[in-house]
Protein backbone atom coordinates (compact mmCIF):
# COMPACT_ATOMS: atom_id res chain seq x y z
CA UNK A 1 0.00 0.00 0.00
CA UNK A 2 2.38 2.68 -1.17
CA UNK A 3 1.34 6.30 -1.20
CA UNK A 4 1.53 8.17 -4.49
CA UNK A 5 4.00 11.02 -4.77
CA UNK A 6 2.93 14.11 -6.71
CA UNK A 7 3.87 13.20 -10.23
CA UNK A 8 3.07 16.38 -12.10
CA UNK A 9 5.23 19.43 -12.27
CA UNK A 10 3.80 22.28 -10.27
CA UNK A 11 3.46 24.38 -13.37
CA UNK A 12 0.78 21.97 -14.52
CA UNK A 13 -1.35 22.29 -11.40
CA UNK A 14 -4.73 20.62 -11.26
CA UNK A 15 -7.52 21.26 -8.78
CA UNK A 16 -8.83 18.08 -7.13
CA UNK A 17 -10.93 18.31 -3.95
CA UNK A 18 -9.44 18.44 -0.43
CA UNK A 19 -7.98 15.69 1.80
CA UNK A 20 -8.43 12.13 0.61
CA UNK A 21 -9.75 10.44 3.75
CA UNK A 22 -9.73 6.99 2.20
CA UNK A 23 -6.04 6.91 1.31
CA UNK A 24 -3.55 5.78 3.97
CA UNK A 25 -2.02 8.64 5.93
CA UNK A 26 0.96 10.29 4.29
CA UNK A 27 2.54 10.77 7.69
CA UNK A 28 1.56 9.23 10.99
CA UNK A 29 3.44 10.25 14.12
CA UNK A 30 2.22 8.71 17.34
CA UNK A 31 3.07 9.59 20.98
CA UNK A 32 6.27 11.40 20.10
CA UNK A 33 8.33 12.12 23.18
CA UNK A 34 11.63 13.95 22.94
CA UNK A 35 13.94 14.56 25.82
CA UNK A 36 16.67 17.21 25.87
CA UNK A 37 19.02 16.45 28.73
CA UNK A 38 16.58 16.34 31.62
CA UNK A 39 13.74 18.37 30.15
CA UNK A 40 10.96 17.07 27.90
CA UNK A 41 10.64 19.12 24.72
CA UNK A 42 7.80 16.97 23.37
CA UNK A 43 5.48 15.12 25.72
CA UNK A 44 3.48 12.74 23.62
CA UNK A 45 2.47 14.43 20.37
CA UNK A 46 0.30 12.83 17.69
CA UNK A 47 0.34 14.13 14.14
CA UNK A 48 -1.53 12.68 11.18
CA UNK A 49 -1.13 14.16 7.74
CA UNK A 50 -3.34 13.02 4.91
CA UNK A 51 -2.58 13.32 1.25
CA UNK A 52 -4.01 16.50 -0.14
CA UNK A 53 -4.09 18.44 3.09
CA UNK A 54 -2.08 21.33 4.41
CA UNK A 55 -1.65 21.74 8.16
CA UNK A 56 -0.38 24.77 10.06
CA UNK A 57 1.56 24.31 13.30
CA UNK A 58 1.27 27.08 15.87
CA UNK A 59 2.60 27.66 19.33
CA UNK A 60 4.60 30.12 21.38
CA UNK A 61 8.38 29.97 21.27
CA UNK A 62 9.64 27.01 23.20
CA UNK A 63 6.43 25.04 22.62
CA UNK A 64 8.31 22.45 20.62
CA UNK A 65 7.41 23.36 17.02
CA UNK A 66 10.94 23.21 15.68
CA UNK A 67 11.72 20.08 17.68
CA UNK A 68 8.60 18.38 16.31
CA UNK A 69 9.50 19.26 12.76
CA UNK A 70 13.05 18.03 13.26
CA UNK A 71 11.72 14.74 14.57
CA UNK A 72 9.31 14.38 11.64
CA UNK A 73 12.16 15.22 9.26
CA UNK A 74 14.16 12.33 10.79
CA UNK A 75 16.87 14.76 11.84
CA UNK A 76 16.57 13.75 15.46
CA UNK A 77 15.26 10.53 16.92
CA UNK A 78 12.31 10.68 19.29
CA UNK A 79 12.98 9.35 22.78
CA UNK A 80 9.86 7.25 22.27
CA UNK A 81 6.98 7.05 19.86
CA UNK A 82 6.49 5.92 16.28
CA UNK A 83 6.80 7.65 12.94
CA UNK A 84 5.52 6.26 9.67
CA UNK A 85 5.98 8.16 6.43
CA UNK A 86 4.24 6.89 3.32
CA UNK A 87 4.05 3.42 4.82
CA UNK A 88 7.75 3.33 5.74
CA UNK A 89 8.84 3.05 9.36
CA UNK A 90 11.01 6.14 9.59
CA UNK A 91 12.79 4.96 12.70
CA UNK A 92 13.89 1.65 11.25
CA UNK A 93 14.15 2.44 7.53
CA UNK A 94 15.16 6.06 7.78
CA UNK A 95 16.69 6.04 4.31
CA UNK A 96 13.47 5.02 2.58
CA UNK A 97 11.37 7.42 4.60
CA UNK A 98 13.75 10.27 3.77
CA UNK A 99 13.05 9.89 0.07
CA UNK A 100 9.45 10.83 0.81
CA UNK A 101 10.26 13.93 2.85
CA UNK A 102 11.09 17.43 1.71
CA UNK A 103 12.17 19.97 4.31
CA UNK A 104 12.53 23.74 4.42
CA UNK A 105 14.05 24.90 7.68
CA UNK A 106 15.54 27.98 9.27
CA UNK A 107 18.71 27.21 7.32
CA UNK A 108 18.56 27.02 3.55
CA UNK A 109 20.70 23.85 3.34
CA UNK A 110 22.35 25.45 0.33
CA UNK A 111 26.06 25.87 -0.31
CA UNK A 112 26.76 29.57 -0.62
CA UNK A 113 29.67 29.18 -3.01
CA UNK A 114 27.69 27.08 -5.48
CA UNK A 115 24.95 28.22 -7.85
CA UNK A 116 21.34 27.07 -7.50
CA UNK A 117 21.87 24.68 -10.38
CA UNK A 118 24.99 23.19 -8.80
CA UNK A 119 23.25 22.85 -5.45
CA UNK A 120 20.27 21.11 -7.03
CA UNK A 121 22.51 18.88 -9.10
CA UNK A 122 24.27 17.75 -5.93
CA UNK A 123 21.05 16.92 -4.10
CA UNK A 124 19.57 15.41 -7.21
CA UNK A 125 22.43 12.95 -7.40
CA UNK A 126 22.03 12.03 -3.75
CA UNK A 127 18.34 11.32 -4.30
CA UNK A 128 19.05 9.50 -7.52
CA UNK A 129 16.68 11.55 -9.65
CA UNK A 130 16.31 10.53 -13.28
CA UNK A 131 16.52 13.21 -15.99
CA UNK A 132 18.09 15.47 -13.44
CA UNK A 133 18.83 18.49 -15.59
CA UNK A 134 15.29 18.65 -16.91
CA UNK A 135 13.89 18.33 -13.41
CA UNK A 136 16.18 21.12 -12.16
CA UNK A 137 14.92 23.41 -14.92
CA UNK A 138 11.35 22.59 -13.96
CA UNK A 139 11.63 23.30 -10.25
CA UNK A 140 13.59 26.50 -10.80
CA UNK A 141 10.80 27.68 -13.07
CA UNK A 142 8.23 26.66 -10.46
CA UNK A 143 9.86 28.88 -7.85
CA UNK A 144 10.58 31.55 -10.45
CA UNK A 145 14.34 31.47 -10.01
CA UNK A 146 15.42 30.47 -13.50
CA UNK A 147 16.88 33.90 -14.19
CA UNK A 148 19.45 33.65 -11.39
CA UNK A 149 20.15 29.97 -11.74
CA UNK A 150 23.85 30.51 -12.31
CA UNK A 151 24.73 33.01 -9.60
CA UNK A 152 26.33 31.72 -6.41
CA UNK A 153 23.72 31.39 -3.72
CA UNK A 154 25.54 33.78 -1.42
CA UNK A 155 24.83 36.60 -3.91
CA UNK A 156 21.07 36.07 -3.75
CA UNK A 157 18.67 37.93 -1.47
CA UNK A 158 17.07 36.17 1.45
CA UNK A 159 13.80 35.79 -0.40
CA UNK A 160 15.53 34.29 -3.43
CA UNK A 161 17.54 31.91 -1.28
CA UNK A 162 14.31 30.83 0.34
CA UNK A 163 12.86 30.07 -3.08
CA UNK A 164 15.86 27.97 -4.06
CA UNK A 165 15.58 26.19 -0.71
CA UNK A 166 12.01 25.40 -1.60
CA UNK A 167 13.10 24.13 -5.00
CA UNK A 168 15.55 21.86 -3.21
CA UNK A 169 12.76 20.54 -1.01
CA UNK A 170 10.46 19.62 -3.89
CA UNK A 171 13.18 18.46 -6.26
CA UNK A 172 12.58 14.78 -5.56
CA UNK A 173 8.79 15.17 -5.45
CA UNK A 174 8.39 14.15 -1.82
CA UNK A 175 5.11 12.91 -0.44
CA UNK A 176 5.39 15.14 2.63
CA UNK A 177 6.62 18.72 2.80
CA UNK A 178 7.75 20.09 6.15
CA UNK A 179 8.42 23.80 6.49
CA UNK A 180 9.65 25.57 9.62
CA UNK A 181 8.53 29.20 9.64
CA UNK A 182 9.09 29.56 5.91
CA UNK A 183 7.44 32.98 5.77
CA UNK A 184 9.92 34.80 8.03
CA UNK A 185 11.81 37.55 6.29
CA UNK A 186 9.66 37.39 3.15
CA UNK A 187 7.85 40.38 1.73
CA UNK A 188 4.09 40.29 1.04
CA UNK A 189 4.51 39.18 -2.56
CA UNK A 190 6.80 36.34 -1.63
CA UNK A 191 4.44 35.28 1.14
CA UNK A 192 1.55 35.14 -1.33
CA UNK A 193 3.55 33.02 -3.71
CA UNK A 194 4.60 30.72 -0.89
CA UNK A 195 1.02 30.26 0.30
CA UNK A 196 -0.01 29.48 -3.28
CA UNK A 197 2.76 26.94 -3.65
CA UNK A 198 1.82 25.22 -0.40
CA UNK A 199 -1.81 25.03 -1.53
CA UNK A 200 -0.84 23.65 -4.91
CA UNK A 201 1.42 21.02 -3.41
CA UNK A 202 -1.43 19.75 -1.28
CA UNK A 203 -3.82 19.90 -4.22
CA UNK A 204 -1.47 17.70 -6.21
CA UNK A 205 -1.77 14.98 -3.60
CA UNK A 206 1.10 15.82 -1.30
CA UNK A 207 0.83 16.55 2.42
CA UNK A 208 2.20 19.73 3.95
CA UNK A 209 2.95 20.71 7.53
CA UNK A 210 4.30 24.17 8.20
CA UNK A 211 5.09 26.02 11.39
CA UNK A 212 4.29 29.69 11.53
CA UNK A 213 3.72 32.66 13.80
CA UNK A 214 1.73 34.50 11.21
CA UNK A 215 -1.91 33.59 11.80
CA UNK A 216 -3.57 35.38 8.88
CA UNK A 217 -1.08 34.08 6.39
CA UNK A 218 -1.36 30.57 7.74
CA UNK A 219 -5.15 30.70 7.57
CA UNK A 220 -4.84 31.23 3.81
CA UNK A 221 -2.44 28.37 3.30
CA UNK A 222 -3.83 25.68 5.62
CA UNK A 223 -6.82 23.34 5.79
CA UNK A 224 -6.42 22.88 9.52
CA UNK A 225 -4.18 23.97 12.33
CA UNK A 226 -2.55 22.33 15.34
CA UNK A 227 -1.59 24.42 18.35
CA UNK A 228 1.36 23.20 20.37
CA UNK A 229 1.94 24.32 23.93
CA UNK A 230 4.80 23.11 26.15
CA UNK A 231 5.38 19.99 24.14
CA UNK A 232 1.74 18.94 23.86
CA UNK A 233 -1.06 19.43 21.36
CA UNK A 234 -3.25 22.04 23.03
CA UNK A 235 -5.91 22.40 20.37
CA UNK A 236 -6.83 21.51 16.80
CA UNK A 237 -8.75 23.84 14.51
CA UNK A 238 -10.64 22.76 11.37
CA UNK A 239 -10.92 21.46 8.76
CA UNK A 240 -11.88 23.80 7.34
CA UNK A 241 -10.47 27.01 8.73
CA UNK A 242 -13.23 29.51 8.01
CA UNK A 243 -11.17 32.54 8.83
CA UNK A 244 -8.29 33.74 10.93
CA UNK A 245 -10.55 34.39 13.92
CA UNK A 246 -10.86 30.64 14.53
CA UNK A 247 -7.13 30.50 14.86
CA UNK A 248 -6.86 33.56 17.09
CA UNK A 249 -9.30 31.99 19.53
CA UNK A 250 -7.53 28.68 19.53
CA UNK A 251 -4.18 30.36 19.99
CA UNK A 252 -5.34 32.37 22.95
CA UNK A 253 -6.89 29.35 24.68
CA UNK A 254 -5.39 28.10 27.91
CA UNK A 255 -3.12 25.10 27.97
CA UNK A 256 -4.48 21.61 27.46
CA UNK A 257 -8.00 22.51 26.28
CA UNK A 258 -9.35 21.15 23.01
CA UNK A 259 -11.13 24.09 21.44
CA UNK A 260 -13.57 22.07 19.34
CA UNK A 261 -14.50 18.48 18.85
CA UNK A 262 -12.46 16.87 16.15
CA UNK A 263 -13.14 13.85 13.96
CA UNK A 264 -11.27 10.76 15.15
CA UNK A 265 -9.13 10.77 12.02
CA UNK A 266 -7.28 13.90 13.15
Amino acid at each position, binding site marked *: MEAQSPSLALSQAIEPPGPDLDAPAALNASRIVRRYGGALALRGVDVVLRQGESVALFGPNGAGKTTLIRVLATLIRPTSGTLVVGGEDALRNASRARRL*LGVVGHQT*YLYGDLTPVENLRFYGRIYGIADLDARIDTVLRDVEMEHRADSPVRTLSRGMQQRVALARAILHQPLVLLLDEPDTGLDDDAQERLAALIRRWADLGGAVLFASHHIEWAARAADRAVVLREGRVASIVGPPIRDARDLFEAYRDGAGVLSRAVPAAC
Partner: protein
Amino acid sequence: MLTFGRQVYAVLAKDALIERRTKDAVSAMLVFSLLVLVTFNFALDLRTEIMSAVGPGVLWTAVLLGSTLGLGRTFAIEREQGTLDGLLMAPLDRSALYVAKLLGNVGLMAIVLLVSVPLFAVLFDVALNPGPLLIILALGTLGFAAVGTLFSAIASHTRAREVMLPVLLFPVIVPILIGVVQATGLALGSTTARDMPWLSLLLGFDAIYVSLGALTFGHALED
Protein backbone atom coordinates in the same frame (compact mmCIF):
# COMPACT_ATOMS: atom_id res chain seq x y z
CA MET B 1 26.33 -0.63 -4.47
CA LEU B 2 25.66 1.62 -7.41
CA THR B 3 23.78 4.06 -5.22
CA PHE B 4 26.70 4.07 -2.80
CA GLY B 5 29.15 4.94 -5.55
CA ARG B 6 26.89 7.61 -6.96
CA GLN B 7 26.46 9.23 -3.57
CA VAL B 8 30.20 9.15 -2.85
CA TYR B 9 30.78 10.77 -6.22
CA ALA B 10 28.10 13.41 -5.55
CA VAL B 11 29.61 14.53 -2.24
CA LEU B 12 33.16 14.37 -3.55
CA ALA B 13 32.28 16.37 -6.66
CA LYS B 14 30.47 18.96 -4.56
CA ASP B 15 33.41 19.38 -2.19
CA ALA B 16 35.89 19.50 -5.07
CA LEU B 17 33.80 22.16 -6.79
CA ILE B 18 33.64 24.30 -3.66
CA GLU B 19 37.36 23.87 -3.04
CA ARG B 20 38.25 24.72 -6.62
CA ARG B 21 36.21 27.87 -6.36
CA THR B 22 37.32 29.08 -2.93
CA LYS B 23 40.70 27.33 -2.51
CA ASP B 24 40.18 27.78 1.21
CA ALA B 25 41.47 24.48 2.53
CA VAL B 26 44.35 23.89 0.17
CA SER B 27 45.92 27.30 0.62
CA ALA B 28 45.71 27.17 4.40
CA MET B 29 47.21 23.69 4.52
CA LEU B 30 49.98 24.49 2.07
CA VAL B 31 51.05 27.71 3.67
CA PHE B 32 51.05 26.23 7.13
CA SER B 33 53.00 23.10 6.16
CA LEU B 34 55.67 25.13 4.40
CA LEU B 35 55.84 27.53 7.29
CA VAL B 36 56.44 24.67 9.70
CA LEU B 37 59.18 23.29 7.45
CA VAL B 38 60.96 26.60 7.40
CA THR B 39 60.46 27.09 11.13
CA PHE B 40 62.19 23.77 11.71
CA ASN B 41 65.17 25.15 9.91
CA PHE B 42 65.49 27.92 12.45
CA ALA B 43 64.64 25.72 15.39
CA LEU B 44 66.94 22.82 14.61
CA ASP B 45 69.88 24.03 12.55
CA LEU B 46 69.42 21.29 9.99
CA ARG B 47 72.84 20.65 8.56
CA THR B 48 73.12 18.06 5.85
CA GLU B 49 74.85 15.47 8.02
CA ILE B 50 71.95 15.04 10.38
CA MET B 51 69.31 15.48 7.67
CA SER B 52 69.08 11.81 6.80
CA ALA B 53 68.35 10.98 10.41
CA VAL B 54 66.06 13.90 11.21
CA GLY B 55 64.69 14.79 7.77
CA PRO B 56 61.78 12.36 7.48
CA GLY B 57 60.56 13.38 10.92
CA VAL B 58 60.73 17.06 10.03
CA LEU B 59 58.84 16.51 6.80
CA TRP B 60 56.06 14.43 8.32
CA THR B 61 55.61 16.70 11.34
CA ALA B 62 55.09 19.60 8.97
CA VAL B 63 52.66 17.57 6.88
CA LEU B 64 50.76 16.36 9.93
CA LEU B 65 50.34 19.83 11.39
CA GLY B 66 49.27 21.28 8.07
CA SER B 67 46.88 18.43 7.39
CA THR B 68 45.21 18.80 10.76
CA LEU B 69 44.08 22.22 9.57
CA GLY B 70 42.41 20.71 6.53
CA LEU B 71 40.96 17.77 8.42
CA GLY B 72 39.41 20.11 10.93
CA ARG B 73 37.55 21.92 8.16
CA THR B 74 35.90 18.77 6.79
CA PHE B 75 32.76 19.18 8.83
CA ALA B 76 33.29 22.65 10.18
CA ILE B 77 32.25 24.08 6.82
CA GLU B 78 29.11 21.95 6.72
CA ARG B 79 28.18 23.07 10.20
CA GLU B 80 28.95 26.73 9.59
CA GLN B 81 26.81 26.85 6.46
CA GLY B 82 24.07 24.84 8.12
CA THR B 83 24.22 22.23 5.37
CA LEU B 84 25.04 19.27 7.59
CA ASP B 85 21.34 18.90 8.42
CA GLY B 86 20.56 18.92 4.72
CA LEU B 87 22.90 15.97 4.26
CA LEU B 88 21.47 14.10 7.22
CA MET B 89 17.86 14.49 6.10
CA ALA B 90 18.64 13.17 2.65
CA PRO B 91 18.69 9.40 2.01
CA LEU B 92 22.48 9.63 2.13
CA ASP B 93 24.27 6.54 3.35
CA ARG B 94 26.43 7.66 6.29
CA SER B 95 29.26 5.39 5.19
CA ALA B 96 29.13 6.94 1.73
CA LEU B 97 29.51 10.35 3.35
CA TYR B 98 32.49 9.08 5.31
CA VAL B 99 34.19 7.62 2.25
CA ALA B 100 33.57 10.76 0.24
CA LYS B 101 34.97 13.03 2.93
CA LEU B 102 37.88 10.63 3.44
CA LEU B 103 38.77 10.69 -0.26
CA GLY B 104 38.43 14.45 -0.27
CA ASN B 105 40.88 14.75 2.60
CA VAL B 106 43.29 12.32 0.96
CA GLY B 107 43.14 14.49 -2.13
CA LEU B 108 43.88 17.64 -0.18
CA MET B 109 46.78 16.02 1.64
CA ALA B 110 48.11 14.69 -1.64
CA ILE B 111 48.22 18.20 -3.05
CA VAL B 112 50.03 19.45 0.01
CA LEU B 113 52.54 16.61 -0.19
CA LEU B 114 53.15 17.09 -3.91
CA VAL B 115 54.30 20.59 -3.10
CA SER B 116 55.96 20.02 0.26
CA VAL B 117 58.11 17.02 -0.59
CA PRO B 118 59.97 18.51 -3.57
CA LEU B 119 60.31 21.76 -1.65
CA PHE B 120 61.70 19.85 1.29
CA ALA B 121 64.19 18.13 -0.99
CA VAL B 122 65.26 21.49 -2.40
CA LEU B 123 65.45 23.41 0.87
CA PHE B 124 67.41 20.76 2.68
CA ASP B 125 69.35 19.28 -0.22
CA VAL B 126 68.01 15.75 0.09
CA ALA B 127 67.93 13.17 -2.70
CA LEU B 128 64.53 11.66 -3.38
CA ASN B 129 63.52 8.15 -4.37
CA PRO B 130 60.12 8.72 -5.99
CA GLY B 131 58.97 5.13 -6.46
CA PRO B 132 58.80 3.76 -2.94
CA LEU B 133 58.19 7.25 -1.61
CA LEU B 134 54.88 7.53 -3.45
CA ILE B 135 53.58 4.32 -1.91
CA ILE B 136 54.60 5.47 1.55
CA LEU B 137 52.92 8.83 1.03
CA ALA B 138 49.74 7.17 -0.19
CA LEU B 139 49.51 4.75 2.73
CA GLY B 140 50.38 7.42 5.27
CA THR B 141 47.82 9.94 4.07
CA LEU B 142 45.11 7.29 3.88
CA GLY B 143 45.66 6.36 7.51
CA PHE B 144 45.81 9.97 8.75
CA ALA B 145 42.71 10.84 6.79
CA ALA B 146 40.79 7.75 7.92
CA VAL B 147 41.14 8.62 11.59
CA GLY B 148 41.13 12.35 11.00
CA THR B 149 37.84 12.36 9.09
CA LEU B 150 36.14 10.36 11.83
CA PHE B 151 37.49 12.52 14.64
CA SER B 152 36.79 15.69 12.70
CA ALA B 153 33.11 14.81 12.70
CA ILE B 154 33.27 14.39 16.45
CA ALA B 155 35.43 17.42 17.17
CA SER B 156 33.27 19.77 15.10
CA HIS B 157 30.43 19.22 17.56
CA THR B 158 32.42 20.15 20.64
CA ARG B 159 33.18 23.44 22.28
CA ALA B 160 36.94 23.66 21.65
CA ARG B 161 37.00 22.15 18.19
CA GLU B 162 40.43 23.38 17.07
CA VAL B 163 41.99 21.81 20.14
CA MET B 164 39.89 18.68 20.26
CA LEU B 165 40.92 17.29 16.89
CA PRO B 166 44.69 17.22 17.49
CA VAL B 167 44.19 15.99 21.07
CA LEU B 168 42.19 13.01 19.83
CA LEU B 169 44.08 12.45 16.59
CA PHE B 170 47.78 12.63 17.46
CA PRO B 171 47.99 9.83 20.04
CA VAL B 172 45.92 7.47 17.93
CA ILE B 173 47.99 7.93 14.76
CA VAL B 174 51.35 7.44 16.50
CA PRO B 175 51.79 4.09 14.69
CA ILE B 176 51.32 5.76 11.32
CA LEU B 177 53.74 8.51 12.20
CA ILE B 178 56.34 5.99 13.30
CA GLY B 179 55.69 3.90 10.21
CA VAL B 180 55.90 6.66 7.61
CA VAL B 181 58.91 8.32 9.17
CA GLN B 182 60.85 5.07 9.33
CA ALA B 183 59.76 4.01 5.87
CA THR B 184 60.65 7.42 4.44
CA GLY B 185 63.99 7.19 6.18
CA LEU B 186 64.70 3.82 4.59
CA ALA B 187 63.63 5.15 1.20
CA LEU B 188 66.05 8.05 1.55
CA GLY B 189 68.87 5.70 2.46
CA SER B 190 69.03 6.49 6.15
CA THR B 191 71.23 4.25 8.25
CA THR B 192 69.38 4.91 11.49
CA ALA B 193 65.95 3.78 10.32
CA ARG B 194 64.82 0.38 11.57
CA ASP B 195 64.47 -2.19 8.85
CA MET B 196 61.05 -3.62 9.65
CA PRO B 197 58.04 -4.31 7.45
CA TRP B 198 56.67 -0.79 7.84
CA LEU B 199 54.58 -0.92 4.69
CA SER B 200 52.71 -3.94 6.03
CA LEU B 201 52.06 -2.11 9.28
CA LEU B 202 50.73 0.89 7.39
CA LEU B 203 48.60 -1.28 5.14
CA GLY B 204 47.14 -3.16 8.11
CA PHE B 205 46.54 0.03 10.01
CA ASP B 206 44.82 1.65 7.05
CA ALA B 207 42.55 -1.35 6.57
CA ILE B 208 41.52 -1.38 10.21
CA TYR B 209 40.90 2.32 10.45
CA VAL B 210 38.98 2.76 7.24
CA SER B 211 36.68 -0.11 8.30
CA LEU B 212 36.26 1.26 11.81
CA GLY B 213 35.59 4.69 10.43
CA ALA B 214 32.96 3.51 8.00
CA LEU B 215 31.25 1.51 10.74
CA THR B 216 31.18 4.07 13.54
CA PHE B 217 30.82 7.23 11.49
CA GLY B 218 27.04 7.10 11.46
CA HIS B 219 27.01 7.28 15.25
CA ALA B 220 29.14 10.39 15.21
CA LEU B 221 26.61 12.27 13.11
CA GLU B 222 23.09 11.37 14.02
CA ASP B 223 21.27 12.99 16.84
